[in-house]
C-alpha cells in the first residue's frame, strides 16, 4: 500500500507519520506542496504542523497550494485522505470537510494526552475499533475548537460522521466534544489529536495504531 505524505512549508509531523506508516507496512513518499499530482496513492496524509506559519487562519493558505487541487480530485475518486491537526484544518479550509477550527476556548495552546471515545467504526479509518472504546491519544494545538452551523451539526450526527469525541473533559471548547469527523463518502477523515504520536509504548500510548491498522486492513 502506498501512502503520500504532503509536505507544506511548516509541516512538522511529516516524519512521525512516515515512521508510523512504514512500521505498519506502508510504502511512503513525501510530496511537496508545489507538486501538482497526488495521484497513484492509496492514502494521502496531510500531517500536522503550522503550514505557512498559520498566517491569516490555520490552513487558509495551504488550501491554495498547487497540490491541493490534486488532493481534492483524488478524494473525489475515493482515495483515502487523512488530515491530522493542521491537516484537519486544511481539509476544513479546502471544503473537503465541513465546519472550521477556531481558537481554543481558553486561548491557550494545549499539549496533553486526552481520552477519545470511538463514536463510529463505519469508515476505513476506525473499522478495527469498537464503538464506545476509549483511546488515549495526545493533542497539541491552539486552534482545535470545532465549530459548524446547526444544519451541518445535525447532518454530521444523523449520518454518523463524528468518528471521535473527547471523553470526559472537553479540552478546547469543541462543539459537542467533536475531535474528528469524516465526509459523506467516509473516505476523508480529519482529527485534531495526533494518532502518530501514540503508536509506540515509549511515548505513553499505542492507541493511535488502530487508525493506521484499520486503514491498512480496509485497503487490503
Amino acid at each position: 500500500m502506498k501512502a503520500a505524505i504532503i509536505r507544506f512549508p511548516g509541516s512538522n509531523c511529516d516524519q512521525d507519520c512516515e515512521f508510523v506508516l512504514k512500521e505498519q507496512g506502508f510504502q511512503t513518499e513525501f510530496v511537496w506542496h508545489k507538486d501538482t499530482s497526488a495521484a497513484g496513492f492509496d492514502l494521502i496524509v496531510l500531517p500536522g504542523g503550522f503550514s505557512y506559519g498559520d498566517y491569516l487562519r490555520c490552513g487558509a493558505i495551504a488550501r491554495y497550494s498547487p497540490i491541493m487541487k490534486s488532493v481534492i480530485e483524488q478524494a473525489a475518486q475515493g482515495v483515502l485522505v487523512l488530515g491530522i491537526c493542521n491537516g484537519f484544518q486544511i481539509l476544513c479550509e479546502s471544503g473537503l470537510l465541513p465546519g472550521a477550527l477556531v481558537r481554543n476556548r481558553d486561548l491557550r495552546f494545549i499539549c496533553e494526552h486526552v481520552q477519545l471515545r470511538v463514536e463510529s467504526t463505519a469508515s476505513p479509518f476506525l473499522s478495527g475499533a469498537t464503538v464506545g472504546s476509549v483511546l488515549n491519544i495526545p493533542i497539541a494545538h491552539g486552534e482545535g475548537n470545532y465549530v459548524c452551523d446547526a444544519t451541518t451539526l445535525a447532518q454530521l450526527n444523523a449520518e454518523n460522521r463524528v468518528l471521535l469525541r473527547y471523553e470526559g473533559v472537553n479540552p478546547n471548547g469543541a462543539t459537542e466534544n467533536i475531535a474528528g469527523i469524516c465526509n459523506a463518502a467516509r473516505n476523508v477523515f480529519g482529527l485534531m489529536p495526533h494518532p502518530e504520536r501514540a503508536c509506540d509504548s515509549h511515548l505513553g500510548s499505542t492507541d493511535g495504531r488502530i487508525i493506521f491498522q484499520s486503514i491498512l486492513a480496509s485497503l487490503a
Partner: protein
Amino acid sequence: MKAKVFVMPKQSILDPQGVAVRDAMRHHGMPGVKFVRVGKVIDLEVEGATEAQLHEIARDLLSNPVVEDYTIQLGA
C-alpha cells in the same frame, strides 16, 4: 484600487479573544464594558481588479464564511 477588508467573527461564534479583552478592560477600571469582539483589518492595494473580484477573494481567502463575516471599504 485601495481597499480595507474588515474580517470579524460571526455573532453566533464565541470569540474567546473578545471575552478576554472585555474582562481585562473590566479589571482595568472600565466595569461598564459590555461587549468586545476582536477581528482583523487587511489593507490592500490592487491593480486591475473589479469590486466583484475583491468580494470573491475576501469571501474565499481573506475570511472563512463558516466563522467570519467581512466588509470591504473601498478607496480607504
